[in-house]
């Protein structure tokens, strides 16, 4: 399994390397101007020259992403559990969840600036809001997918509601919640960037917006590259978390 995983990572690394090489070669042959499409080597030089500055902004974006993501997991599991607590309540609350989810969250971003100012708060709020629905939906799905027989056994054994929740329902829903988290972490990153687009003096979203203002395409691409790596790392973190938290699924 471990060998399989490192194999997949190696294969992924090779394909990315091939893409960058192709980009470099074609870019050089066509003589395209860096202001339109900079070469990977130029981006790399920029990153290496200013790595402290990029790191600083990347850390800021990572922190707001993680804060929004963690809030979305806690909130999503709580809301999902509450919605799933009874069938009639679910019939009432679920359409509300779906309706709210269909509002494009990006469009609400300016509103959060009005409400919360230009600090980290609106970024975290948007990162939370954009990710929380994935968690709610998957928590609901996970809780609903527990076999009736299992719940019947718990009833016959007279487990107290809290004990049944923590010993049966929550672990039963965990694989589904983790699947939701994998989607949510990428969405949180989108939310944090959108928040930085709207108004910010920090973060990779700010870097992109300010570089756009001066037509510094190399800098835009450098920020994009950092974002790509960040997105990959966050996803890898979730895969790792999944393997640690659901060891019984490793054998399948």
């Amino acid at each position: 399994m471990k060998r399989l995983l490192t194999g997949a990572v190696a294969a992924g690394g090779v394909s990315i390397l091939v893409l960058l090489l192709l980009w470099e070669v074609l870019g050089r042959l066509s003589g395209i101007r860096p202001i339109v499409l900079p070469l990977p080597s130029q981006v790399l030089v920029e990153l290496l020259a200013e790595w402290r500055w990029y790191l600083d902004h990347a850390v800021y974006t990572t922190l707001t992403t993680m804060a929004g993501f963690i809030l979305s997991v806690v909130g999503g599991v709580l809301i999902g559990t509450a919605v799933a607590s009874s069938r009639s309540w679910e019939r009432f609350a679920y359409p509300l969840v779906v309706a709210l989810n269909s509002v494009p969250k990006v469009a609400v971003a300016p509103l959060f600036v009005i409400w919360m100012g230009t600090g980290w708060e609106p970024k975290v709020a948007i990162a939370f809001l954009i990710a929380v629905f994935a968690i709610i939906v998957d928590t609901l799905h996970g809780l609903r997918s527990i076999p009736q027989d299992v719940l019947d056994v718990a009833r016959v054994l007279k487990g107290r509601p809290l004990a049944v929740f923590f010993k049966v329902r929550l672990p039963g829903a965990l694989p589904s919640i983790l699947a939701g988290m994998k989607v949510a972490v990428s969405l949180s990153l989108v939310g944090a960037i959108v928040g930085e687009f709207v108004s910010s003096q920090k973060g990779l979203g700010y870097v992109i917006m300010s570089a756009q203002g001066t037509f510094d395409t190399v800098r835009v691409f450098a920020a994009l590259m950092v974002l790509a790596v960040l997105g990959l790392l966050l996803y890898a973190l979730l895969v790792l978390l999944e393997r640690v938290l659901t060891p019984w699924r490793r054998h399948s």
Partner: protein
Amino acid sequence: MTPVNVSAQEVSKRFAGPRGVQALQSVDAEIGAGRFVSILGPSGCGKSTFLRCLAGLETISGGRLQIAGQDVQGPPDGIGIVFQQHALLEWRSVRDNILLPLEFAGKPVANYAAKVDHLLAMTGLKNFAHSYPQELSGGMKQRAAICRALIDDPALLLMDEPFGALDALTRDQMNAELQRIWLATGNTVIFVTHGIAEAVFLGDEVLVFSPRPGRVAHRLRIDLPRPRPLAVRETPEFGRYVGEIRELFGTMGLLDEKGAIAS
């Protein structure tokens, strides 16, 4: 725990709803303490519903249903249950699955280590205590589910087609094992099945249910000495019991020409 008797008088069950189904009508049954009783019937005859009423998972609509002289209101104390699907928690090892009833009952799990070992040895799962359910075969999962049902010494063991999803060979094996376990534990067992041979092989008594609405159509005492070897099924006595039940199903119009129970 000392085994308990079960008594059903005129028990009826009607499922609510616009097309409410009368699942049980006037079910009468007296099941003595420590008896192994098979409930036999075709699909949809209400035999599982009857078992669920006993487990307190469904409420009866009429009549009287008692376990050890107590009216059943919600899940009674001291029962173990096994379903057709193992219903094990896939994130717990076999051992931790077996301990679940004790955790729910708030009993000190550490005191039961020897008991778990004993049950695992009795069911041939000794080497699989730390395996996850999905690493086990179907028969082994059902054995683990039986261990879970037995860990807290139930006075009454309810089994709802526990071997229905197993292949014929495993099923035979499990029948022999269940008899052995029951002879060792001596609790009252109510065993729901749609297999005639299985019902006769295991039961001290067979209650034959007729469908729509479900009621006890026939009550048959099985006077075969115990322990019964699997080969008992080739004896003429066994054949007579099976024949009697087949005939009964025939008169109910439940048998087609091939002799299988129509569902």
